[in-house]
């Protein structure tokens, strides 16, 4: 009975801390907006580099292969009925609206989310987080805000790059395996894909960026202060990010459907 009480108290306390975390985040974002000079630009650039430039290759590769696979699978099916050109629709829509942003989110989770949790967890072990606090510097402003800004900048750009790579992957199958002329396939792609479709997909990335960053950082702050605790925080960040990413994706898609997009 006492154990259960203890567990409940622990969970309640964690929720309280989560609310405080968001409160602090709101305050710190306001501070940085009012005094942009105080924002930690160097850190922001570092994370743009870490999550952006260094993830570009793998994003392009995975999304390219995704387009490739989609076209192949779609081609197999559609070929029996004719109308191979519709593969362009299939690849375009599923990539831009769904798979592109989701794949980018997954890659960023593995790369950035776990790194954020490990970094903040390690800083907690080394009492660096305490040191920030006793210097009167908000650890959230110092550690979370630069990561959040970097991710908000980087993920949409990565998604656009991934989308392009995926379309090219699809095109490759279209012109080889399906024997479609390049101009026909590309023309069809441009015909069905409005800028709106691209935008809807990219907008998802802002939500994903916030989710991945906040979960990673939160797990880091909550890490048990030892080596294993930091490891658990990093894994925990990845697992809960993936789950929440998919759930968020579902709700965004439902929302898009409800407004008729």
């Amino acid at each position, binding site marked *: 009975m006492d154990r259960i009480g*203890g567990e409940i108290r622990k969970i309640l306390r964690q929720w309280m801390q989560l609310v405080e975390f968001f409160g602090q985040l709101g305050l710190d974002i306001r501070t940085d907006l009012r005094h942009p000079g105080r924002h930690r630009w160097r850190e922001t650039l570092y994370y743009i580099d870490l999550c952006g430039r260094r993830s570009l290759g793998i994003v392009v590769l995975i999304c390219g292969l995704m387009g490739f696979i989609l076209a192949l699978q779609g081609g197999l099916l559609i070929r029996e009925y004719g109308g191979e050109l519709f593969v362009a629709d299939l690849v375009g829509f599923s990539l831009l609206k769904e798979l592109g942003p989701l794949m980018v989110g997954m890659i960023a989770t593995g790369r950035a989310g776990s790194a954020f949790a490990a970094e903040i967890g390690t800083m907690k072990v080394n*009492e*660096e987080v*305490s*040191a920030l*606090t*006793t210097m009167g510097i908000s650890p959230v402003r110092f550690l979370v805000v630069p990561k959040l800004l970097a991710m908000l900048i980087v993920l949409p750009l990565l998604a656009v790059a991934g989308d392009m790579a995926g379309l090219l992957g699809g095109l490759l199958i279209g012109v080889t395996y399906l024997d479609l002329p390049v101009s026909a396939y590309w023309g069809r792609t441009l015909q069905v894909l409005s800028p709106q479709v691209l935008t809807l997909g990219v907008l998802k990335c802002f939500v994903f960026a916030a989710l991945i960053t906040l979960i990673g950082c939160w797990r880091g702050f909550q890490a048990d202060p030892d080596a294993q605790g930091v490891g658990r925080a990093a894994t925990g960040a990845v697992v809960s990010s993936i789950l929440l990413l998919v759930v968020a994706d579902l709700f965004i898609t439902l929302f898009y459907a409800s407004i008729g997009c």
Partner: protein
Amino acid sequence: MENDAIIEVRDLTVGYDRRAVLEKINFTVKKGEIFCILGGSGCGKSTLLKHMIGLLPPFSGDVRLFGESMVYADDAARHRLMRRFGVTYQGGALFGSMTLLENVELPLAEYTGLSRAERRKVAAEKLAQVDLAGFEDYMPAEISGGMRKRAGLARALALDPEMLFFDEPSAGLDPITAAELDRLILKLRDQSGATIVVVTHDLDSVFAIADRIIMLSKQDKKIVAEGSPCDLRENADMLWVRNFLTRDGLSRR
């Protein structure tokens, strides 16, 4: 005597997850005093320190620094208090992505209107003060544990604090470096009149620097002795206290 108390700890009960580590602790530290907190391993020295500097909320009781409550202060007031004291952590707690100079510069950049050049000058002075001149551009990972500690001290000194807290400053230092650190602590107090609170295990250091000490007991969860170290070594009521201060009767040959 109450008047010149700059740190007041009143009926403080602290612990983790409802389990109290220390109960109803009372003591004061006077301005300009060097005050040491002693006790067996796991008796709650670090825990007490963390509560004194406002990192953890106590179960009950109050900690007052400069006459203001740390416990009941709102965030803004607590941050104002925090700027007036410096803390050095066991491992230095330097920020790994910044050079030593940038670490020391950080509080200056946050709280002073100094230009970059002035900040760098002050930071370099602080590093020189702890014997780290020439290491300005090293990363924390590139220096030894003792040097990290001293760099952490330099950072704590950056804003010329009126009060300094140390958690085990001499742990892991060789005797000469430890003695130098003690000398530095004495110098800081004598030059700037800073009040200094030290958690330590190092008896040599205690006898060298402490004006007054308290000893905590894990069993009783309270202070079992308070006074000057030499006085307690000779005259403490509890045998355990006398033993602790004489290393269980096994003194130096």
